[in-house]
């Protein structure tokens, strides 16, 4: 494993987030603090309803916390994501953030190449032939070159998730947030996905946060967090029972 940088690029500071009112009020996050480092792949686990997805959403700039800060390295400067205006936050996500979700969410009408091209074109990263070349490069690295003209209906589950990973990585983000990226896949394809994400972190220097229930992912990550009842703790990378 390559050396992890000592300065975090994403810091969650005393994050609190509650849902509901009155007697139904429930704390999903209670003063949670977390550092993510460049080149590091972190795993966030915990039982259902423990607040994993809430923490991912808060850290990624999708859900505002009730209290606390999310400080992110944006062009060498640590900025509080939740002090930005919505427009600034949208632009920040465009510059820095990639997402992978359990459900792939690929456009049924587009080929694998077009799924990546649309991000480059609409995000203003590249246009026309340049966008096509960059999309092809990424698909090549993911082993999807033979499938670049195929639409989602012609791809297997594993291939679809690799395309989704390509879509998240093609703009070379500083942070990648993956919510249950392997849960819709068999273990063989799940392993491939984790290898690709680990390579994405180590080779590209991205900070990757993976939310999952699956302990089999532990060998593929650099750090493991456990979240339960809104409280976060870092745990050793030894699978239970070892």
């Amino acid at each position, binding site marked *: 494993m390559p050396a992890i940088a000592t300065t975090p690029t994403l810091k969650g500071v005393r994050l609190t987030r509650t849902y509901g009112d009155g007697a139904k009020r429930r704390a999903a996050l209670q003063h949670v603090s977390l550092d993510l480092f460049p080149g590091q792949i972190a795993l966030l686990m915990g039982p259902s309803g423990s607040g994993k997805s*809430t923490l991912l959403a808060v850290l990624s700039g*999708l*859900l505002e916390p009730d209290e606390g800060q999310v400080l992110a390295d944006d062009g060498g400067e640590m900025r509080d994501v939740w002090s930005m205006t919505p427009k600034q936050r*949208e632009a920040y996500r465009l510059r820095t*953030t990639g*997402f992978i*979700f359990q459900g792939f*969410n690929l456009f049924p009408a587009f080929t694998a190449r077009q799924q990546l091209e*649309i991000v480059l074109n*609409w995000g203003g990263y590249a246009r026309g032939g340049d966008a096509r070349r960059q999309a092809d490069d990424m698909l090549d690295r993911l082993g999807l070159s033979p499938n670049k003209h195929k639409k989602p209906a012609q791809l297997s589950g594993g291939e679809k998730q690799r395309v989704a990973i390509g879509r998240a990585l093609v703009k070379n983000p500083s942070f990648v947030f993956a919510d249950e990226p392997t849960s819709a896949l068999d273990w063989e394809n799940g392993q491939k996905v984790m290898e690709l994400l680990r390579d994405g972190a180590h080779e590209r220097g991205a900070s990757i946060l993976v939310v999952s229930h699956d302990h089999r992912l532990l060998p593929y990550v650099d750090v493991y967090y456990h979240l339960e009842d809104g409280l976060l703790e870092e745990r050793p990378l030894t699978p239970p029972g070892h």
Partner: protein
Amino acid sequence: MSYALLTLWHERQRYVSGVFAVTFSAMLIALQCGLLLGLFKITSIPIDHATPWDRDRVIWVGSTGAPSVDLGKPIPVGFLTRLAGREGLSSPELYIANFGNFTKPVGGTELCFLLGTRLDDEALAPADVLTPELRAALSEPFTIVVDRSDIARLKLDSPEGKPKINGKEVRVVGVVTGLRSLAAPWVFCSTHTARQLMGPLLPADHTTYLLARADTPERARQIVADLRATYSEDMSAYVAEDFSYSSREYWLLRTKAGVAIGYAALLGLLVGAVITAQTLKTATEASAREFAILLALGIPRWRISLMVLQQSMWVAVIGMGLAYPVCLGLRQVALMGGADVDLRWEVLSGTAALTTLMCTGAGLWALRGVRQIEPMSLLR
């Protein structure tokens, strides 16, 4: 290919109802307007069929307050001097156009419209469908020509009896085709015959119109402007094509037929708009998770809105692409049945503009679906 078009093609079964709604709407608008214009062309037949190749050069002079060719009142023949001697203008000729009382050979009467003109080869006024043979026949006193479509209406197919106009016996020496009438059948004759038939209803030193041809369209407009400026108190002047337009517009507005067509077109637009809007909104909602991913990645929402609007434009283009050939086909069918559907470029481009506007409105309505998309929905 654009992302909007790619999606449209892939999800064509979803979009087909919207496309057909636009097709239906465009057809309804184009055919209704075309039928109306075709119908009201009848009101300007005497102008449109008089030297049609020179409609931008022939000048019509008539009484004041005659917005339509069938509403001209007698004017003094002496007005000829107002036209005579003008540079680049031919010698003016008389045109008698008046309603008459047609008595059918078997009895009963019908209103008719007498069109009395010069009949020589140089004359401007006679209908272009009057062949040299018919013109020669019409040179005999009390002879007339009518349109084939009016033969039955005037009972001229009856072997018995003789027709009369204003109580004077006339003889039908031929028929023409394609000059259908609305209220009163057109009756073509010479100025001499017309004057005889009108009798005291048209004083001897009066006519209904004066016609003259300028050497250029520019000259025609200049002379008309000059005549209007000088003699507006007791006569009116038009270039033929403007008089034709004025005649049709007058009857279109007078009969309020435009209002009826407007309601029908509005109905078509409403049906098209509702179905297209619903189709686009449903399609947008079906792609909500894919759009949510793009929003999470920081793609601006306006990009997605633009794609939905592009889809609405494509629905408009494809819908109209289907509608226009069908309209042209139906026009041929209508022509075979004797009805003219005037699908001039103004009708087609106006329909295109209305349909595009409707689809833009539908697209804007469907954007409500885009505004409801939230990336957080992917994490719930």
